[in-house]
């Protein structure tokens, strides 16, 4: 199993979530976070925005579904401008459902 951490634009959140749901991944966790990237924030005239609001989506999926999830997230959150976000993949050793207590 892998955990997919996708940092996306807040305005693209609904698009991505609906597309993931349509692709068969309705289960996820969402957090509103602040971050900055290679450009160290955003410079608009004299005003500098250091940390920009983003949405962090957490999904745990089977190894075979990682590419599919990544492509769904990327296709629906892409605008082509800086600040589109990142997707990180890590290993998950075990997953448990609290209600039944069984490992997945």
């Amino acid at each position, binding site marked *: 199993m892998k*955990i997919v951490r996708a940092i996306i634009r807040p305005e693209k*959140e*609904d698009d991505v*979530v*609906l*597309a993931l*749901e*349509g692709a*068969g991944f*309705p*289960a*996820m*966790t*969402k*957090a*509103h976070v602040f971050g900055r990237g290679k450009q160290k924030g955003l410079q608009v005239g004299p005003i500098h925005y250091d940390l920009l609001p983003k949405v962090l989506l957490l999904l*745990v999926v089977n190894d075979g579904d990682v590419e599919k999830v990544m492509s769904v997230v990327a296709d629906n959150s892409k605008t082509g401008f800086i600040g589109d976000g990142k997707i990180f993949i*890590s*290993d*998950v*050793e*075990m*997953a*448990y*459902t*609290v*209600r039944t*207590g069984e490992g997945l």
Partner: protein
Amino acid sequence: MKEIMAVIRQSRVKQTMEALVAIGVTSVTLHSLNGRGRQGGNIMECVDPLMSADVECVSKIYKFPTPSSMAGASKLTKPVFWVPKSLLDIVVSEVPAEKVVEAIMSVNRTGSKGDGKIFVLPIVDAMRIRTGERGDAAII
């Protein structure tokens, strides 16, 4: 070293903390965030209590009847539904991860949907910023 990520009900956080202290886990990071599970949110309670359970899935992009697909059927405007949850982040080295998982599960199990998930992840390295200790010494 293992990281335990537990997504649990917000009302059970205090009891969970007490159970964790009882097995010797004192360091916990708590996040408040929103989640949705296999049901894609809480269909009957959050969306429309009057809506019948067997609404047909009208939209073609959905394979499963979820709150979002049913939102179109009942002319609701907000299509994505989230349930407030708490995420506990625990990194352990001495205490076995299975023991922590059992402690969290014994407190949080109500038997109904929405009890949450627990994930166990490997941690490659850790550092205590105050002293610069690395690895297991940083966590104990």
